[in-house]
């Protein structure tokens, strides 16, 4: 028998959660790193108007209308939703809310994230269909 401290450290008895919790942690971290990189890229793109005028920003924004960038945007929305909803779960655990039902809390949080992604996916694909019905040709 292991001591309570050792059991907590090695997550003994966690069952399926041991694997699921590990993936939740890893994806949370990867999404977080992606979002930090995006944050600086975003500030860089928006500030381009200040360096070289409106047309530089406008041509960048036109490029982002391309289906490839719309799909990348959708991936970004997933990173935001996953990171945000897993973060909500972490905040709830910090407040001691739902600790005894933590797997159910995780499932509900992920369900909210998936439903949210659904709304954005619907918008993204209808946008691509409306603006690029003639095919997914060259950039811009």
């Amino acid at each position, binding site marked *: 028998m292991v001591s309570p401290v050792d059991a907590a450290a090695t997550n003994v008895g966690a069952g399926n959660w041991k694997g699921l919790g590990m993936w939740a942690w890893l994806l949370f971290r990867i999404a977080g790193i992606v979002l930090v990189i995006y944050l600086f890229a975003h500030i860089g793109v928006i500030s381009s108007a200040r360096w070289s005028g409106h047309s530089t920003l406008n041509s960048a924004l036109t490029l982002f209308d391309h289906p490839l960038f719309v799909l990348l*945007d959708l991936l970004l929305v997933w990173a935001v939703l996953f990171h945000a909803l897993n*973060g909500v779960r972490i905040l709830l655990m910090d407040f001691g809310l739902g600790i005894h039902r933590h797997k159910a809390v995780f499932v509900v949080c992920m369900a909210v994230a998936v439903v949210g992604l659904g709304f954005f996916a619907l918008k993204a694909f209808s946008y691509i269909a409306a603006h690029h019905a003639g095919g997914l040709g060259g950039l811009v």
Partner: protein
Amino acid sequence: MNAQATGHSSPPPAAAGTDPAPTTGRMRPSVLDSSRGGMWGWLGQRVTAVVLIVGLLTHIVDTHLFNLGHLSYLNIGDRLGSSFFVVIDISLLAAAIFHGLNGARMVVLDYWLQTRASRVALTIALWVLGSATFVYGLWALWPWIAK
């Protein structure tokens, strides 16, 4: 073998060097230890998380669900013509920079920087970078805000 025989009675003694204070509350003190980012970083990460959930939801839903279409210099200006979005965007800028850089700091502390001096140096460097980025971001938004 029972718990008594392994030398662990209740409450269990902390492993040397991991839990410097007794576990009295819900939180394990090691979570708030300076090697894990400290109490202020922990608290700041949670406060900015709430700001980001509200602000980013507003920002993304407004940009991509309500106003989906071609973005341009002019319609970004339309949005920033409303003081509501000026408040949202500036608090997002500050909260996102803090949350992102503090998150990156947590990742770094998980793998590197064993000495206190190197951790303080990282924290100072990130505060300088974050403050500069905030001022730069404000400068970038200013033509729209001041218009």
